[in-house]
Each structure stands twice: as C-alpha cells, then as structure tokens.
C-alpha cells in the first residue's frame, strides 16, 4: 500500500553509495589477501587475478613460519598492545575522573598539560627515552614498549574520557557516597562501567598505532625474545631484496588480531552510541 514516508528509492540510493564505498575501502585489502596466496611471479604478472592451481602458493606463509618465531612475535605484540591499552584506559580514566569530578586549583592547567603531548611527535624524544630505558635496565623488555605507548596514548585518552565523565550523573556519584563508597570505589564501580563506550573509543584509537608501530620496537626492544610482529615482518624487507610473498603473508596475518580487537571494542562502542549513553 502507498505510504506517506516513502523511503525505498532513497534507501536503494543509500545502499548503492555505501556499497560503492565499501568496495573502495576493501579493494586494497582484497588485493593484499589474494596476493599473499600467490607465487611472486603471479603477483606481478596479474596482481588482480585470484589464485588458481597454477599460481596458488603458500610459499610466503611457509617462509614466515620458517624464518623467526612468529608465534612468539605474535604473543609479544599481543602483550604489548593489550597491556598498554589497559594501562592507557586505567590511568587515563583515573586522571580524567580527577579532572572531571573535582574542582581543585590547577584543574584547567593540568588538563592543558596532559594535552600537550598530542602536539609533538614523540619520536624526537627517542634518545632521551632510550637513555632512560638503558639506565633503568628496561631495554629489550616489553615493559619499555608498554611504558612508551602508555605515555603516548594518555593525552587523547584523558581528553576523550573527561568529556564523557562530565556526563555521568552527579546524583549517581552522590548516591554512592551516601552508600559509603570511597572515591576510589565510586570511580571503579560506578563511573568506569558507565563510560564503557568512551573507553572503547579510546581503545580503538590507540590500538592501531601501537600494534603497527615499528620505530620503538626497533629501538627499545629489537632482541629476538621481545620482537613484535611488525618488527618481525621487517626481516623480509631487505636493503635491496624484498621477499614480497613473505611480507604479504606476514602482514595479512597481522591484520587478523587487530580485526578481532576492533570487533570486540566496536561492539561496546556502538552499543554505547545506540543506547544513547553517548552525547
């Protein structure tokens, strides 16, 4: 029957646009994936061709697993990413809570101070950081990486989380105080669960640069036992000769875990958005 709110035409158009963009977004990823299953010859002969009997090859994956301990690298990357994210979220949320909840002298100043970090590339502080890690004996430990990433992630985390925390009802926190919750418990048991969507946002923003970083693993933790996946994949990029099969395979495998993390966080994110918890 005829309807007053005719939407079918626009809906089709919307799907068409979104579909087109989705193809644009996924096409390069698709190119990488299919080529990781082909011989080098086939990659460059016909980069768009799907692997077939003739061109199918797992040589890249074989090389990756032969060359270096990829399970270990993977584990290192995972530890660094997850622990850094946890610390960023925890420390960031704590600081954001202090800034959002309490009025104290220097509140604004502290907020600005914590924001400075997003404006300077941390790379230039490399030597000082490395010196510090050397003197504390943290070089070639995952702790060094975790500390750097945590520091690097904090400014944005504090910025985003404090915005959200201002939105948590004062009454709720006061109800907690009446119930005898300490300020720490209010933070931990009331506020944190309520800003989960914001935490997910922060996690998504920080996860990617950490997972993909090459620089700090190279400088702070190049040893075999603490190599990250990205650094491990560098083995295949030589000065003159690059093993494209292996690079593509390693990188394809490196996409998976971030995808999984993203899916986990984005569910929180979207749930938060759609339940109206986000303003």
């Amino acid at each position: 029957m005829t309807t007053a709110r005719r939407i079918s035409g626009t809906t089709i158009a919307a799907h068409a646009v979104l579909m087109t963009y989705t193809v644009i977004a996924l096409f390069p990823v698709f190119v990488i994936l299919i080529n990781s299953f082909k011989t080098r010859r086939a990659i460059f002969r016909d980069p768009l061709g799907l692997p077939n009997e003739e061109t199918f090859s797992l040589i890249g994956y074989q090389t990756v697993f032969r060359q270096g301990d990829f399970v270990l690298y993977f584990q290192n990357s995972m530890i660094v990413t997850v622990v850094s994210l946890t610390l960023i979220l925890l420390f960031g949320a704590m600081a954001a809570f202090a800034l959002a909840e309490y009025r104290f002298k220097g509140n604004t100043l502290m907020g600005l101070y914590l924001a400075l970090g997003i404006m300077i590339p941390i790379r230039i502080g490399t030597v000082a950081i490395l010196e510090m890690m050397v003197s504390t004996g943290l070089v070639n430990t995952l702790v060094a990486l975790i500390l750097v990433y945590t520091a690097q992630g904090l400014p944005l985390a504090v910025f985003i989380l404090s915005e959200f925390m201002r939105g948590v009802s004062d009454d709720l926190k006061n109800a907690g105080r009446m119930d005898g919750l300490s300020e720490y418990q209010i933070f931990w048991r009331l506020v944190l669960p309520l800003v989960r969507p914001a935490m997910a946002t922060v996690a998504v923003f920080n996860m990617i640069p950490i997972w993909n970083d090459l620089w700090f693993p190279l400088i702070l933790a190049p040893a075999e036992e603490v190599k990250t996946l990205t650094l491990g994949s560098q083995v295949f990029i030589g000065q003159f000769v690059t093993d494209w099969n292996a690079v593509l395979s390693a990188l394809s495998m490196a996409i998976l875990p971030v995808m999984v993390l993203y899916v986990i966080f984005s569910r929180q994110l979207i749930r938060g958005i759609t339940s109206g918890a986000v303003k």
Partner: protein
Amino acid sequence: MPAPSKPKTRWHIAVFLAPAVLVYTAVMIYPLFNTLRLALYAEVDQQRIWVGLQNFQTLFGDAIWSEQFWNALGNNAWFFLIHMLVQNPIGIALAALLSSPRLRFSAFYRSAIFIPTILSFVIVGFAWKLILSPIWGIAPGMLDAIGLKFLYQPWLGKEEYALTTLSLVSVWQYVGIPMMLIYAALLSIPDEILEAGECDGITGMSAFWKIKLPLILPSIGIISVLTFVANFNAFDLIYAAQGALAGPDFSTDILGTFMYRTFFGFQLQLGDPHMGSAIASAMFGIILIGVCTYLFGIQRRLRNYQF
C-alpha cells in the same frame, strides 16, 4: 558559633592523577622537552654549545633551510586541506547514510569502512603503490575498462599529483574515524526534532542541511582539530610510500618528513638533532597556534546543544 569546616586534604585527587602524570611526564614530556631544548644549542667540534635562537634564525633566514621549511609547510597545508575537504565531508556523508533509520546491513558497512583505519602503513603503502603502479596494470586496466585510460597518469611519480594522491590515500585510510564520530553525534540527535522537521516539510537532504548539520557542528569542530593535529604530525604514510626524501623533488615533503630527515639524518646526510629540534619546535608552535585558534576562536562559537 559558626564553625568553619576544616578543609580536608583530598589525597584521592593526587592518587587519581599520579599514575598518568608520572608516566606521562617521565616518558613523554621530559624526553620531549629535553629534546626541544636542543634547539637552542649547536654542536661545534664535538662540543655542544649554547647558541640561543640561532638555529631558528638559520631555519627561517637561510635560503636553503627556509625554502625547505616553507615547501614542507605548504605541502602540509595542502595535505590538511585535502583531508578537510575530502575526508571529513565523505565521513559525514557516510555517517549520514549509515544513520538513516531502518537501514539494513549498516553494521557491515560500518565495519568494512573502518577496516582501512586499522591497517599498517606498510600494507597501505604497498597496496596503493601496487594499485596505482603504471607497471602492474590495476589502475590503468580499470580505467581502460571504463574507457578512461587517457586519464591515467603515474600519479605517485609526478610532482603535480604525488602529494594529492598520497593525501587521498591517507583520506581513504582514515575516513573511518570522522565517520564513527559523526555517526555517534547523529544518533544522539533526538528523533523528535527530526520528526518536527518532517512535519515542517524538512526531509531528506534539507533535513540534513538544515537540522542535522548545524547540530553536529561541534563534533565536526572536534574532528577538524584532531585532523589538524594528526596531519601536522603526519609522517608514516609519506615515509612508507616515498621515503625520507619525500619525492619526487620534495613535492610530498611535509613537516614530519623534513623533521625526520634533519633530526635523524638520511643516507649520507648526518643527523642534526639541533636543527631537527628547531623544526620540531616550529611544528609544535604551529600546532599549538592551530589548536588555540580553535579553542578560543572557533569552539566558543560552536554551541554544544543539550538535547
């Protein structure tokens, strides 16, 4: 007898702030400012000597340095402009489409469009170089298929196109972020306001222009300033695709690559932490000015609406 209640020391504030402030100060601020300090020194005969602002004088006064600096700054501005003009509008448009009610598969679209954002620069650089390469035929072939072969150019290799091309690749990679943020902002617009618009005859495009867009302006503002900061700190993509010399002929050189090259050295060029720090300080200044302009000039005009 009015008893003034004694002010309590609120230790918990310190406890809440301490971990973040300590880690951040020790691992970020201290090294950064320790390094920026180098901008005021120079190395002469293996000796570090205080030269005041002389490095800056060199950077802005010496033709060789200043030419590179302004070139990088100009490229950076263009890089930023493309993001503002392409990435953010596309992000907004996609978010607007995604937020239309009762749209099916929206979760799929959302995730798919976000995927490039989680890829590493190595992948992005490789994939796009492969696609755009004149040799392997993906882009020329596809243009050929729709009869537009004559439009094909070796984009990454031509001075006039390379920067724009890389900016667009970066847009492709990051469009998910404005999309997500705008999507959240759009969802928080109450249905009733849109329905009021519907009763007023404001539907479809005009609903977007007249109601939704003004209401998400604050979010757009935040995204713009985040884009600004990210763009003026950008480095990796250009470096991954064009190397530290940001070719062809420095046409893709931005402040990040210029700073990197100067600070850490490149090929036969030795690293000069002092000049490098001077460039980094200049970048810091530019970003600070941009952010302050936003905070004090623009943001106060963007009203945050309570629904």
